[in-house]
């Protein structure tokens, strides 16, 4: 008698229904800012050579009473850049009948105290600095000196020029 045994093996393989990724993706970034109080700059003292004599150089140092001075107020602890714009590129100031009084040897320094002497940090006048710091206070003082070099035949009279100091926070 024949007997049949059936063994049926059904093999199903169904692999991987489509796994769809999300059709929308999102991501955040932050938007940040650090507000400092506004800067103020005041021309507090003129650079005053006073009386000068033809052929005789006269120097005003940053520590002298006659030195130019700017007073700056701003954010405690902040660092600022200091940049001068000198009269006639720092070469001379004008007098009677457009006579030119030569200037040279500019000097400058900044301090958190009102003195161009002890503790005043020097910097190159022509190129400025990006490292002046308010420290624990809110006031900076910037001092300016130079040498007037009148020629032997310098025209007598009053000579004047203007110096501008530009101050900006450094990031």
């Amino acid at each position, binding site marked *: 008698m024949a007997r*049949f*045994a059936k063994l049926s093996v059904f093999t199903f393989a169904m692999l991987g229904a489509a796994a769809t990724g999300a059709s929308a993706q999102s*991501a955040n*970034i932050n*938007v*940040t800012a650090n*507000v400092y109080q506004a800067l103020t700059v005041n021309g507090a003292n003129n650079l005053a050579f006073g009386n000068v004599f033809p052929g005789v150089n006269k120097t005003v140092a940053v520590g002298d009473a006659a030195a130019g001075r700017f007073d700056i107020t701003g954010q405690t602890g902040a660092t600022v850049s200091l940049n001068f714009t000198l009269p006639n590129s720092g070469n001379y100031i004008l007098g009677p009948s457009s006579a030119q009084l030569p200037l040279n040897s500019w000097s400058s320094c900044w301090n958190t105290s009102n003195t161009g002497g002890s503790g005043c940090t020097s910097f190159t006048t022509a190129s400025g600095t990006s490292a002046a710091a308010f420290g624990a206070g809110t006031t900076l003082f910037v001092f300016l000196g130079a040498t007037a070099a009148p020629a032997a035949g310098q025209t007598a009279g009053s000579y004047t020029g203007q110096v501008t100091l530009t101050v900006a926070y450094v990031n």
Partner: protein
Amino acid sequence: MPTTIRILTPLLFTAHLAAAQVSVAGARNLAFGVVAAGVTTTVLPTDPIKSGQWTITGQIGRQVQIKLTLPTRLNGPSGATMPVNFTTGDVFVQETATGSLPNYFNPGGANVFRFTNGTQAIVRLGGRVTPAVNQRSGAYLNSALITITVLN
């Protein structure tokens, strides 16, 4: 006794496991840095340090929609707020493949972008803050969201 064994093997079929078609990640914050009270400060999207940036990864030929959700103010100390705004010219998308050019778009709208030269692109964000003269000093913060939607 004969034994019959039948093995039925239906068609095997597979479907591709589809990974996420596109991905996006934040790469850099939009950082205005120090801002002086009373002085409007702008960051260009081309700024390599301060501009915000996202990176989008996809497949060549894939087309996506880019949409930004941007703040109108930053939140600061003691409840102070500072206006921030974004205009056309403040955002672009650019593939990272060599020779790819930036495509600027309106940050308030939706931009359609297609991967043509590679599988990666960046979105760069600039903007401007307008602190008041008496703006309270301190740190200000908010967030910007990008949403990438696959079109095809």
